């Protein structure tokens, strides 16, 4: 689907914030798609990582906020070790999560996890899940 780009559609703030939190320069991405081809969650995400990088370059804030990509990302780092431009895409995904989490918004509610699940889940699942998905 074609998208219109102009100064008005580009949100400079999200571009700056992501650069600041991640320390990564997403401008370096040349859209080869290796990240999308390596992503184990590719068929579960609404926007592939290659496109997330393009949306960032264009400052498409709304499209980035609507994407579930960074919430389904498991930080497996497959895209990171394969990116020919050396971009730490996992850090970019983390910064997109942080933009929401730092507003005190939680993605999962620990108190809603059933007693049955807490009895079964290993501690490492709980600690990592809370670190990634709660504020």
């Amino acid at each position, binding site marked *: 689907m074609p998208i219109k780009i102009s100064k008005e559609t580009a949100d400079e703030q999200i571009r700056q914030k992501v650069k600041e939190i991640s320390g990564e320069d997403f401008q370096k991405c040349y859209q080869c798609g290796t990240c999308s081809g390596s992503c*184990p969650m590719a068929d579960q995400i609404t926007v592939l990582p290659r496109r997330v990088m393009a949306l960032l370059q264009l400052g498409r804030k709304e499209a980035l906020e609507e994407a579930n990509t960074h919430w389904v990302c498991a930080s497996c780092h*497959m895209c990171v070790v394969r990116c020919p431009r050396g971009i730490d895409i996992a850090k970019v995904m983390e910064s997109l999560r942080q933009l929401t989490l730092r507003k005190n918004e939680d993605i999962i509610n620990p108190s809603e996890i059933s007693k049955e699940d807490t009895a079964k889940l290993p*501690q490492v699942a709980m600690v*990592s899940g809370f*670190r990634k*998905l709660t504020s």
Partner: protein
Amino acid sequence: MKISYYPGCTLKTKAKNLESSALACLDALGVEYEELPRWNCCGAVYSLSDDDLIHLIAPVRDLIRVQEQGFDTVLTLCSMCYNTLARANELMKNDEVKRGTINDFMDEEPDYKGEIKVVHFLDFIRDEIGWDKLKANVKNPLNGMKLAPYYGCTLLRPGDVSIDKSNSPVVFEECMEALGAEIVKFPKAIECCGSYQVLGNPEAALKVSNDIITEATAFGAEAMALTCPLCDYNLGHRQEEMLKKYEGTKALPMFYFTQLMAVALGVDPENYNLDLNQAVSQEFLKGKNLLEKVST
């Protein structure tokens, strides 16, 4: 050589079978170790935000404890702990500015500069024991076991803390081969099991775990070796859900690699803690007559 041992939270309870089997193997191989006194949770994941240093305090504090203990190497078993401690260590070694901030913040602790070596059980055995010595200690070879070693993510990525080549590792296969197993290599051995998404997107995690199991089975595996308690939960303990949801998925026995090593080295079966594995895994070992051999 004596080393420090960092267990981490899960190994004291739900993954006791990983700890007890690994420590029994170290004993059998003559490795001297001492559990890290006053260890704390490493945080499970390394912070990926450049401006977040507070989450580094926990792993760095553990590394300071190792230094106090008087050792230069700390051994980990859980892949997540390995990754978190190793990455925190790399940062303390290489980033002067952040190192200064963290050391200043922990002003009651001695300064830390990344001098400790963080190793995982697998690279420790490879580098300090060697496959030949491991092989020489095998009393009960895993002959005829078609085994798929599964690395997961955090032992291999990112590259600066990888225990082998990130995209084409061999350390796990070589280790299990030394124990007599027939190795089944499969492409998804280095892919993600869904990790903490078991909390956020349990269905997405189930799908990727199911893909891993079905691929390993298609490549001829009759069992899988694991290194991580979170992988064990996603790939092992959630198999019942997979069998219900996905047609064609077959139950695949799962073991921590240290349990299989303990079997091969012929250590006392009470150290396997097999009751924490799935029933299908227990049956599989019985079927291979590996348990009987040890007890005689």
